[in-house]
């Protein structure tokens, strides 16, 4: 039988969660993912689903960053890559990649990412304003920055990404 007391267990539990949850502070859900060596995130309420794999059907006449379409339980969704828009090298063909199904108002699409790092809830205060030295191409796309596992994570504006993409960027 364990020699731990209930008080000790509760204290340990509180310590373990001290950094992630403060019941009095509003939290935000984030889907954190990697593109190349960089980490990014979308707000969780914009991501409906994370797909481990899906057959992508090529559609002619589209830019290279538009992979094609996938069939999600009878619904057709596009799949785009953000590498060009984010000025990242093309990482097509990396094994273990995922597709995030994003929706913002009337626009929806799958977004290819190299891997999903985590889906987590953090205190809103952990998401800081974008730094002044953010590269120009990222400035309109980044809503905030947080630190996760000692690495910077840029929280991206999915609404802006979709509307910029529809206008021909990326």
């Amino acid at each position, binding site marked *: 039988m364990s020699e731990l007391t209930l008080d000790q267990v509760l204290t340990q539990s509180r310590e373990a969660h001290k950094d992630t949850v403060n019941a009095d502070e509003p939290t935000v859900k984030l889907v954190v993912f990697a593109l190349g060596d960089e980490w990014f995130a979308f707000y969780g309420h914009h991501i409906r689903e994370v797909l481990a794999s899906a*057959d992508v*059907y*090529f*559609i*002619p*006449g*589209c*830019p290279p960053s*538009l992979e*094609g*379409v996938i*069939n999600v339980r*009878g*619904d*057709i*969704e*596009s799949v*785009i890559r953000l590498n060009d828009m984010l000025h990242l090298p093309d990482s097509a063909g990396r094994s273990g990649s995922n597709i995030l199904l994003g929706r913002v108002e*009337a*626009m*929806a*699409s799958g977004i290819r990412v190299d891997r999903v790092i985590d889906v987590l809830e953090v205190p809103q205060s952990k998401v800081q304003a974008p730094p002044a030295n953010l590269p120009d191409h990222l400035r309109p796309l980044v809503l905030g920055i947080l630190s996760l596992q000692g690495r910077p994570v840029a929280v991206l504006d999915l609404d802006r990404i*979709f509307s910029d*993409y*529809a*206008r*021909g960027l990326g």
Partner: protein
Amino acid sequence: MSEARDSQPESPALAMVLFSAGPWRIGIEARWVGGSRRAAADGPGEAIESLLGLPAEGSRTGPCQTLSLKHPEGGRALRVGEPVALAEIPISRLHRLPSLIAARIGLRGARALALADDGQAVLIFDPSRW
């Protein structure tokens, strides 16, 4: 033109003429097609690849057909790749173009997508926009 019936046709369905443009499958509503006949690769009619702005058909070696289109501005001959088939596509399989594809696709008249029995995507066009 052959008649290809999807297995277990559902109701309602839309009659479509399906054909090839290079490696891709294309469809248009059958009501736009007056007829079809076998043709040489350099036979009569405008090549579908040229009409849509797809890569040139110079390498096409497979059999072709010429479709007679009932275009609002008069009849029009269109040279397409085989197989050419008349198919009943259940409307449950017809999908609007996803918003980002509708915004970025560079092919004139692209309106919808259908997924065939074999899972292949068929791009559906509206000939009145050609």
